[in-house]
């Protein structure tokens, strides 16, 4: 199994451009997440989804949009890119149990985005 796959791995954008970070998982996990990692700041949750058709904002959603049309895919859209969105982005997924989210996250390799 591939696990969680993110594309692209690297991207440079100009201010005001838009792009979509792709994320797909083949583990049939219900929960999916997008995080951003800034130097020295840990991971901040952007958006998450508890299942197909359901998305919700995390801690830092401004400037981003997501969709979850299938269980496998959870793309992250950046509209009107700004230098403050320069970061490393991680997609993750987790499975559910009788109590809901089991708590173990499976991460993609990350996407390094630079906005100039």
């Amino acid at each position, binding site marked *: 199994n591939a696990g969680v796959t993110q594309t692209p791995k690297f991207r440079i954008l100009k201010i005001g451009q838009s792009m979509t970070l792709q994320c797909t998982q083949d583990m049939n996990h219900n929960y999916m997440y997008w995080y951003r990692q800034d130097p020295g700041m840990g991971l901040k949750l952007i958006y998450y989804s508890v299942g197909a058709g359901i998305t919700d904002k995390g801690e830092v959603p401004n400037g981003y949009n997501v969709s979850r049309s299938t269980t496998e895919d959870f793309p992250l859209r950046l509209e009107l890119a700004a230098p403050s969105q320069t970061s490393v982005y991680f997609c*993750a997924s987790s499975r559910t149990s009788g*109590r809901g989210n089991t708590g173990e996250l499976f991460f993609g390799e*990350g996407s390094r985005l630079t906005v100039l």
Partner: protein
Amino acid sequence: AQRVTQPEKLLSVFKGAPVELKCNYSYSGSPELFWYVQYSRQRLQLLLRHISRESIKGFTADLNKGETSFHLKKPFAQEEDSAMYYCAPFNYGQNFVFGPGTRLSVLP
């Protein structure tokens, strides 16, 4: 507010020395505690969770509810332990809050 602190951004130890990565949390409810690790050029992955009470790669972590701490320890550090370590409390039904991370560098 939920908060996780890892006071050391960088921790350097010599091979064979004991290592302790500190984690303190301020969290509602009774969270489960996790440690995640990111080795160079690899993806973030789960190292251990306190509920399992197991030792992974020689690492252990004890949850101290009184001090709200979950420090990660290893008695004899190895060079392959060099990595970024993140403490993450978790309440079922909610989302993770990750600490800022500690970079462990094990020197030969």
